[in-house]
């Protein structure tokens, strides 16, 4: 187990290096004029050139990257070219917002998908058809449309929740819940639709296995068969999909954070990428890669823990 974790962490470190080098190269395309972006189209050419020199952009790209890497390995990601804020502090302020969103959606998705998937897989018939129709609907509806409808109905019309903004968990727990509920609900629609179908399929597959028939024949109670045997074996595909959903949520978070005006890293990625703020974008890329590696590792460990057969796979 330890060697597995060490190998995965080492692979993650290599991935970080490769992604950082490629990202820096792509961000430093020769046409980008960061000085002009910062100072605006009306700034004199010589002022723009001075700004580019001040930012070190007059140096060759490999030198710029080496400089960035030397600082990054020490945890120093520099300051934003556009706002002057410390990059680590800026991301640390925004990361809890996005993490709240992603964890919230994952929990809601896990619980609802499990309930719906198991219900459909065990009951079959009308229940199964209903879950399938809901799944198709949830998947087919465009995410932005669902979000807009939710915000207009529950925030603007009914006034039950705030339409915009974020209150930190440490500031006020009810406040945090109130600001995170609608964004989580918006993102959960498609996620539940996808994962519940996986759970349903996996449950049906396991229920058809010979050993389940044997367990039934031995007179084990249905609940014991379901919770001790069926769910444990059906967990692997569901958890894998849930892990992929978690990583994919970063993309969905971009839209939801914009509509709800949440100060998370999704909205931050859009703002700073369009401006070409390399120190911030690079740090965001690193956060995303670390997140992907960590989630995949966690899913592998969890699947192994739930299903011993998977440990040898």
């Amino acid at each position: 187990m330890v060697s597995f974790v060490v190998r995965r962490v080492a692979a993650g470190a290599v991935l970080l290096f490769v992604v950082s080098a490629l990202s820096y190269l792509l961000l430093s395309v020769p046409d980008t004029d960061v000085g002009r972006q910062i100072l605006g189209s009306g700034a004199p050419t010589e002022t723009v050139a001075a700004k580019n020199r001040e930012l070190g952009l007059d140096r060759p790209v490999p030198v710029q990257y080496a400089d960035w890497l030397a600082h990054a390995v020490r945890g120093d990601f520099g300051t934003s070219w556009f706002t002057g804020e410390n990059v680590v502090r800026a991301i640390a302020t925004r990361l809890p917002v996005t993490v709240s969103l992603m964890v919230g959606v994952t929990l809601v998705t896990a619980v609802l998908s499990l309930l719906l998937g198991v219900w459909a897989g065990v009951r079959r018939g009308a229940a199964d058809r209903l879950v399938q129709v809901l799944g198709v609907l949830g998947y087919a509806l465009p995410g932005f449309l669902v979000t807009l409808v939710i915000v207009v109905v529950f925030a603007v019309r009914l006034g039950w929740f705030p339409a915009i903004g974020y209150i930190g968990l440490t500031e006020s727990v009810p406040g945090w819940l109130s600001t995170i509920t609608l964004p989580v609900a918006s993102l959960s629609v498609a996620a539940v639709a996808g994962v519940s179908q996986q759970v349903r399929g996996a449950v049906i597959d396991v229920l058809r296995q010979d050993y389940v028939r044997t367990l039934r024949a031995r007179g084990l109670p249905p609940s014991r068969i379901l919770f001790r045997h069926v769910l444990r074996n059906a967990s692997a595909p569901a958890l894998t999909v849930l892990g992929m959903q978690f990583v994919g949520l970063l993309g969905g978070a971009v839209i939801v954070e914009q509509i709800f005006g949440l100060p998370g890293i999704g909205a931050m990625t859009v703002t700073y990428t369009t401006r070409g703020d390399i120190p911030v974008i690079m740090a965001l890329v690193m956060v995303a890669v670390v997140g992907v590696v960590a989630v995949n590792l966690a899913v592998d460990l969890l699947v192994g823990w739930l299903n011993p057969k998977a440990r040898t796979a």
Partner: protein
Amino acid sequence: MKKSTRAVTLAAFCVTAAAALTGCAGSGGKGGAGSTTLTIATMTLPQSLDPADANGSALPFFQAVYDTLLKREPDGSYSPMLATEWKYDDDRTELRLTLRDGVTFDDGTPFDAAAVKANMERFGKKAGAQAKTLKDVKSIEVVDRTHVTLKLSQPNPAMLYFLSDAAGLMANPKAFDKPGDPLKTRPDGTGPYELDSAKSAIGTRWVYTRARNYWGTRLPYENLTISYFNNETAIVNGLRTGQINAALLQAADQQAAVENDRKLSKAEQEFDFQGIVLFDRGGALVPALRDPRVRQALNHAIDRRTMLDKLRQGRGEVTSQIFGTQAAGYLKELDPHYAHDPAKARELLRQAGYASGFTLRLPRVTAIVPDALASSLQTDLNAIGVKLAWENVDAGAIRKIFTDRAYPAMVMNLGQHAVDWIGINDYVLPGVFNMFGTTDDTVRELLPRIQRAEGAQAKEDLRKLNRHLVEQAWFVPFYRMSYLHVSDGTVRVTPQSGMAVPSIYNYAPAK
């Protein structure tokens, strides 16, 4: 029995949780009448809070913590702020300022003539977007503690405006030599508010609290929050729920969305104009553009009214001039100067020797030129035989346009300043938007007169200049765009002359 107790407990929990959550709805920024907090939404991100980085629509971020030498009133007139009096000498190359006595920075450092000199010299030297505004300041002479004289290399009719804008923001000089430029995130000025760093998240939300020992008249709000959004949908939702007290809406569809909402207060303002800036009037890249008849033909080809109606739902005013309604050089009769007349345009091209047309290769930044505008312009110009070829330019690659001078013209949204000289400086004199430095005898004759005259005296020459620019078709303006100042009904917003966003002094509780 046990089951029903559990159900009741669960129901009670749900009701309590729902009440607690809904009780929090809107807690993000209730403000306005009777409130102590004003929450403004913006789509402008300041580069930093160092006055050297102050620019355009980001000014309110700075006004909260720094005072300017002069205060610009909503109507564009000037009133005392850190300078109590100002006077030009006869040839308008020396501006003497009398400074307010008894004002100190947070650490007790007095605001004096030495501070003004240090601030302005630093502003001119730093690579800030507005550093150019002090290019005519040759030297700054400290006369005594409360008097300073700006010596100008030539008269600059916009100098008072600049002293009420970014160049006039005064920071504590003691912060200048500290390592790491602390002013970027920890502003130190004499303004009406202080930045509350603990509650602020730079880049997202700036929270200001009233300065304890502010020298001037207190503003109506105890706290000021400026929140950054990158889309107007969230802003409109925030206004409707009262989480945002005031904001400027620029997009026509968002303006339409709030139009019939009676709860919201609205005030319209025209500031930016949209049009084609013809850089290459000398014909270096496209020889045809050297001929005024060709430029006039381009103006006649554009169906401004249809464009305004279809693309901005009629929110604005068609125009053929770059001077805005508040400028002294503005002439109402010039707005409809170039009627949509493809036949006349084709005739003008024929007279100029371009009967078979020519190709115009223009850069396209999609944020400025969306698909509908791009195809509309292509259709209009194609109708007179001018082939418009768009080249998509990424916002990060605009160096091609301004440094490489690779394009003869560009569709832009540009401000129409109330101070004529700012517009002249930006669009008529050689510079970024006149990158080939083209001019003519009339312009050469009028500019020095305008530069040296008082505002009212210059009016006639400004109007002559405006008429000349329109007749010679230096530009192809389409329309002035209407923006909407919207408040949640609890705040009265007074638009600011010459600025798209209001100053922070322009907000008050609605009665």
